[in-house]
């Protein structure tokens, strides 16, 4: 139980500190021609029960930002600046300390639900294993928690389905299973890295509704990474627009969508196809 207590102490909030506060975060990788900076001076905060949308093209550094928060940068990557969870600095902590936070305090939902479940194990094994690694307890108790989590993500017949393999589920169901895995530890923050990109539009809508419902129930903070402005407008309270590793603009969703200040944000919004104008030419964004 020492793992649990250590994870808890880190999350005793510093009075007045927000759930997640990132200040002047920069991420760079060494290359043969000197360090390449993929994220420059990004700052944002996420409060409990709110959702921050990070938007940008591929290569804009949005995924690297989230990996830096988790301490999961690929080999050689270094992050500078400050990442604070309830006022506790996360950067510079050992992998051992971060492992207690990952999954437990901060959970992550990935882009491709088809490959983010291990094909070798039943989904029950995968959910209970993550749960028991952090909380301990008996297999039976973990199984109960897993069934409840599956129920909450609206998997029909969870008692039976828990013993099925990933390949027996559809893409949308697998993403819901990933979300079940993320919520069964009741994390303070869920980072969703393009969680609906691999899914078709109707399934995408279901997943977004589900995430919004879960957030209402638990007050979890969310970071929602996507290149899809329609998705952002639907889920996010605040938006951070990134381009080539730089922060372009930051503001509330309403402000970004109705009164964008940066030309790049305007170009992005202009590139959205409009359903009411059948003759418009699709606009691109100058890279």
């Amino acid at each position, binding site marked *: 139980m020492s793992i649990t207590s250590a994870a808890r102490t880190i999350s005793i909030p510093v009075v007045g500190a927000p759930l997640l506060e990132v200040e002047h975060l920069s991420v760079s990788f060494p290359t043969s021609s000197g360090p390449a900076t993929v994220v420059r001076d990004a700052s944002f905060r996420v409060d409990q029960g709110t959702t921050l949308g990070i938007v940008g093209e591929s290569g804009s550094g949005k995924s690297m930002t989230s990996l830096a928060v988790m301490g999961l940068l690929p080999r050689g990557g270094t992050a500078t600046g400050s990442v604070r969870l309830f006022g506790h600095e996360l950067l510079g902590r050992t992998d051992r300390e971060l492992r207690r936070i990952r999954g437990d305090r901060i959970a992550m939902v*990935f882009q491709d639900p088809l490959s983010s479940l291990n094909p070798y194990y039943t989904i029950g094994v995968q959910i209970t294993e*993550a749960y028991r690694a952090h909380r301990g307890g008996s297999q039976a108790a973990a199984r109960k928690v897993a069934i409840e989590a599956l129920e909450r993500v609206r998997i029909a017949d969870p008692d039976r389905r828990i013993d099925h393999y990933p390949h027996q589920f559809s893409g949308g169901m697998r993403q819901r299973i990933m979300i079940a895995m993320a919520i069964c530890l009741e994390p303070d923050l869920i980072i969703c890295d393009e969680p609906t990109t691999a899914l078709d539009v109707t399934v995408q809508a279901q997943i977004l509704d589900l995430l919004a419902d879960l957030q209402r129930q638990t007050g979890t903070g969310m970071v929602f990474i996507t290149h899809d402005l329609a998705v952002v407008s639907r889920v996010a309270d605040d938006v951070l627009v990134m381009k080539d590793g730089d922060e372009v603009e930051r503001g509330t969703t309403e402000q970004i969508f109705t009164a964008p200040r940066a030309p790049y944000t305007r170009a992005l919004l202009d590139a959205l196809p409009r359903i009411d104008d059948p003759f418009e030419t699709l606009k691109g964004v100058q890279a």
Partner: protein
Amino acid sequence: MTTVPSELAVETEAKGALPSGGAPTPARRVLHSLRTSPGAIASIVIIVAIALMAILAPVLSAITGWDPYEFDPTAIDSDLGGLPIGPLGGVSAEHWFGVEPGNGRDIFIRVAYGAQVSLLIAVSATLVTTTIGVVLGMIAGYFGGIADQVISRVMDFLMAFPTLIFMIALLSALPAGNRPALLVIVLSIFGWPYTARIIRGQTMSLRNSEFVEAARASGAKPLRIAFREVLPNLRGTIIVLATLAVPGYIGTEAGLSFLGVGVTPPTPSWGQMISTAVGWYAVDPMYFLIPGTFLFLTVFAFTVLGDHLRKALDTGDAA
């Protein structure tokens, strides 16, 4: 390729037929696919028969009344230079597969004891090379960096070696001692890179898969990821590689014994029997054919089984 659609059709029916909704485990799926393939069944039957023959060699010896080292002067014609008496190399109720020309040893019992030696060497070498290959391949593929550099260069070095020549040189230079054990060691030294290379590549691609990233994001330790997430997904590859390695080692062992650097006489071995039979093939072709057929059947059965396993494991997405 024509069998693939039918297998898939059978597979979906089987899934639908499970009323309780019990999940078809990957193992069950592979077993099912092997059961429906005549080639796989035939090769399993051959392998089991030869393995039984090897294990029960002492029992067979008691039944037939012949010992692998026992000469039978009454079964050979000393006037004809020791040719077996009777048709087909002396096949009779007494000697089921005939006798060896020159000394009259019973071929059936020598083949049975030879199977013991061949299978023991091949299976031991496979176990050793698979273990070393999987461990080093996973270290190289999972941790990369310096570990990968060192292991990969050693593999390149060993694979670029003229293996057979070196084995012959090594085995003739080493003191005779325990020849089967020596053979296992020599086969293993040169055999593991072939397993390790494939495991390394698969580990590298699995390490970058999203479920490994998801495990990292949920706070799993590196060793746990290696053993619980990556290793189980390699099992199909490992099974196929091991099955296909066995016939290779049986063949190499027979080849080395044929060349006189393998198992030392009088210990029976298939390669050695074939080697001795070469001098007699014009007058007693059966002496050559019988151990040759056993060697062929064993290698063939293992190879066919390996290919079927590979196909069965490849078809499902849960492989």
